[in-house]
């Protein structure tokens, strides 16, 4: 059995990084499912079948959103960029470029920490320790 969500040897990855990778894989699967249901609904003519697909796609929306929120909570810089892009009116690309630049500026002038370390606010990124070994 393969463990395709890992790009590096799992034994060399920390527990939180393995969890992060699993949720990233889950996020991808949910996005694929949303796309599949969109295509199925586009060609389906049976109203009952359409209703089921519509309901199922709603479940995938929920799963995708939960996965995304989990990842954003664990990744402060991602969260900061997402905050500048999501639910904003106007040009998406402009918002994205501005949010990315703002996150780089704050890293440069803030903690001085490198990527993969603490976020711009200096957080140590500890969070919940449920299920984490000692």
């Amino acid at each position, binding site marked *: 059995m393969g463990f395709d969500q890992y790009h590096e040897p799992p034994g060399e990855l920390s527990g939180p990084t393995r969890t992060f990778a699993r949720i990233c894989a889950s996020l991808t699967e949910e996005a694929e499912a949303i796309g599949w249901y969109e295509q199925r609904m586009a060609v389906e003519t049976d109203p009952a079948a359409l209703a089921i697909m519509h309901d199922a796609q709603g479940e995938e929306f929920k799963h995708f959103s939960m996965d995304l929120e989990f990842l954003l*909570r664990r990744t402060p810089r991602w969260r900061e960029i997402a905050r500048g892009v999501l639910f904003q009116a106007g040009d998406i690309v402009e918002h994205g470029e501005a949010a990315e630049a703002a996150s780089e500026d*704050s890293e440069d*002038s*803030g*903690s*001085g*920490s*490198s990527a993969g*370390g*603490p976020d*711009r*606010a*200096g*957080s*140590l*990124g*500890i*969070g*919940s*320790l*449920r299920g*984490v070994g*000692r």
Partner: protein
Amino acid sequence: MNHLLRGHAPISDGGWKLIDDEAAERLRPALAARRVVDFSGPHGWQHSATNLGRTTALAADLVDGVGGRQRRVLPLVELRADFTIALRELADHDRGALDPDLDDLDRAAYQIAMAENVAVAHGWREAAIRGIAEASPHKGPPLAATIDAYPRPVAAAVELLLAQGISGPYGLLLGREEYTRVIESAEHGGYPLLEHLGKILDGPIVWAPGVSGGLVLSLRGGDFLFESGQDFAVGYDHHDVDAVYLYLQESFSFVVATPEAAVALAAHGKPAPRPRRQTR
């Protein structure tokens, strides 16, 4: 630059990485409460209060016929533990020294982790935080003097929770003394006590510095909520020619939604855990 003022510190990128890595490494093992309660956040430094969903009626109408109610919230508390690092040690680390002296950081990390454990387990009256042991209506049997008898109070606590309809799995927070007894001991027949307790609980047994005695609680979720404002971070206070003065800080609140979902087990020879004011 944010409120931690890290950009003002005379510390290189490598120095900050050393400090942050060391702080996280020292905090994680000692943060017991986070291993058994629900965690929400971090919601940021500006997050100031937890919604309780409750209101207080305002006695007087502002205008005839228009009454009012005021929302009740639980303000977040800030924990801060100061520490000092010699600039010479940081300079040596930048040169490649492998053994910088970070003892004061280690001490601060342990102390602030212990403070969080105490607030969650036993409460913090000045901060209006009710601890799990304080809130629980169940006072289980005290932990026994002999190791062979240790499983009895734990099993009794689990049975008590089951009888209340509180499902598992269950976790067990143990103070330092009690935890040491458990991991160093085997019962008659050689069966490790740690494994026996694990089978009773179907959940983790957690080393919990600052906790008095033991605490059995359900891990089903929804019963105990830790709300993080700013999660642990290292900030800069000031420096002189010899040292840099830093601090570890977090903000949080804690709410017990289901007091009956935990059972406090007093340490042997001590009364049931009570709210504590001191963190040491």
